């Protein structure tokens, strides 16, 4: 047997469509996860004890169970509660919820890292609680969380491969199917690894560029 990734690359259009699905799942998952995660973290931080505990429990369950299990539960368990979802919407929802749980934890830690003195300064200058949140706490938090947020985006890309098992036609499903058809499974896996790695690398670079650009907006000293 000869190792020949060329066999896989002949199917470029199919790979392209799988890649497109993966990118859409990923980007929508990030956007939805950031949005929902932000709302969850903000509600937990400023919404009082009951909200904090309730949402906290939910986040813990989502973070304490494997993504694979969550996807199975939604896809195969959903119909029992009247939730019939096609693979792609099901995958989108699962990935978004999963992302939201982790993003909310990142944002929560970010809020906690904003020096209390910065908020007290706002208070002394007469800013209302809401103004202090909007003008000081949210922007400072956003800058603090940039590195871990990019890191999580990378993890989500890799987790999206899990959706292949509910027949979402994303990159992993597409390329491994090609591999099976062509009796070139190892080549398929190799091509997959290279594509994922390239996206991860590009994302990391983008993140570092953004971080450098924004570094002067961070606190100089404690």
């Amino acid at each position, binding site marked *: 047997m000869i190792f020949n990734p060329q066999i896989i690359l002949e199917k470029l259009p199919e790979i392209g469509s799988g890649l497109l699905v993966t990118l859409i799942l990923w980007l929508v998952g990030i956007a939805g996860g950031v949005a929902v995660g932000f709302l969850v973290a903000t509600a937990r931080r400023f919404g009082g004890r009951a909200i904090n505990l309730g949402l906290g429990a939910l986040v813990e369950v989502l973070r304490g169970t494997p993504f694979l299990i969550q996807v199975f539960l939604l896809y195969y368990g959903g119909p029992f509660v009247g939730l019939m979802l096609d693979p792609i919407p099901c995958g989108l929802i699962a990935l978004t919820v999963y992302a939201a749980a982790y993003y909310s934890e990142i944002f929560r830690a970010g809020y906690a890292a904003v020096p209390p003195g910065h908020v007290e300064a*706002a208070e002394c200058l007469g800013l209302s609680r809401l103004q202090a949140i909007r003008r000081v706490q949210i922007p400072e938090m956003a800058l603090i969380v940039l590195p871990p947020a990019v890191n999580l985006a990378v993890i989500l890309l890799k987790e999206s491969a899990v959706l292949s098992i509910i027949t979402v036609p994303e990159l992993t499903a597409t390329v491994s199917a090609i591999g099976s058809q062509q009796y070139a499974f190892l080549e398929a896996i190799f091509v997959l690894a290279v594509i994922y790695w390239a996206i991860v690398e590009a994302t990391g670079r983008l993140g570092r560029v953004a971080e450098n650009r924004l570094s002067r*907006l961070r*606190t*100089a000293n404690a």
Partner: protein
Amino acid sequence: MSLPAIAITKLVKRFGDSTVLQDIDLEIPEGKVSCLIGPSGSGKSTLLRCLAFLEEPTSGMITINGEALGFFEAPNGKRERLPPAQIRAVRAKTGMVFQQFNLWPHMTALGNVSEALKTVHKLPKGEAEARALAQLRKVGLENRANHYPSQLSGGQQQRVAIARALALEPKIMLFDEPTSALDPELTGEVLNVMRDLAAEGMTMVVVTHEIGFAATVAHQISFLDHGRLLFSGPPSEIFAKPRHPRLDQFLDTYLDRGASMLA
């Protein structure tokens, strides 16, 4: 005698079981510089934070220009909380400067100084920035207006923080160890700004370990020890020998901080 800028009566502050301030009675004269000194943990910051209403007193009264801060004593002797708008109005009479500057890192110097003018006072952007720029000029930082805090030295950051507080035209300025986080060679520029402010007749309450500054600029020095105000008076009296033994002890530990001139 004119109304004191700040009157503190029977002020008590507890955190849980520990009493941090006990029965503080103190009047801060209008237009004068008042320094609070005392060993670490004696309650200086807590007292100052009570004046800024960052801490709520456990009991006792604080009035600022004769107006009650936060709470008032009802005729039946019970303490009642004032409405938020009134608390806000009384708090606006003071400006606070922190040891750690507490500038907002995502805003330029100009942004820091103009922020409250825009969001609280609702001034149009142009006017707010013009006023902010004037304040930055006053602390000698007009040419740093577009720098972010991370691009400024500690002394410059603290001067921006002073300008930020001054921009709202407070009647009283509160300083909590404004130079303690600075390298020694940078303390001078901040102390000079404070001297200028004192010379203009600003009422100032300064928590400081700069005994030299206190001895030369303050009109009143108050010595806190274990949450109690041991004594208070003009520097000439307080530093005159024989001194209170606790003050002597305290000064011994600060000989390297400019107190040597008094030895």
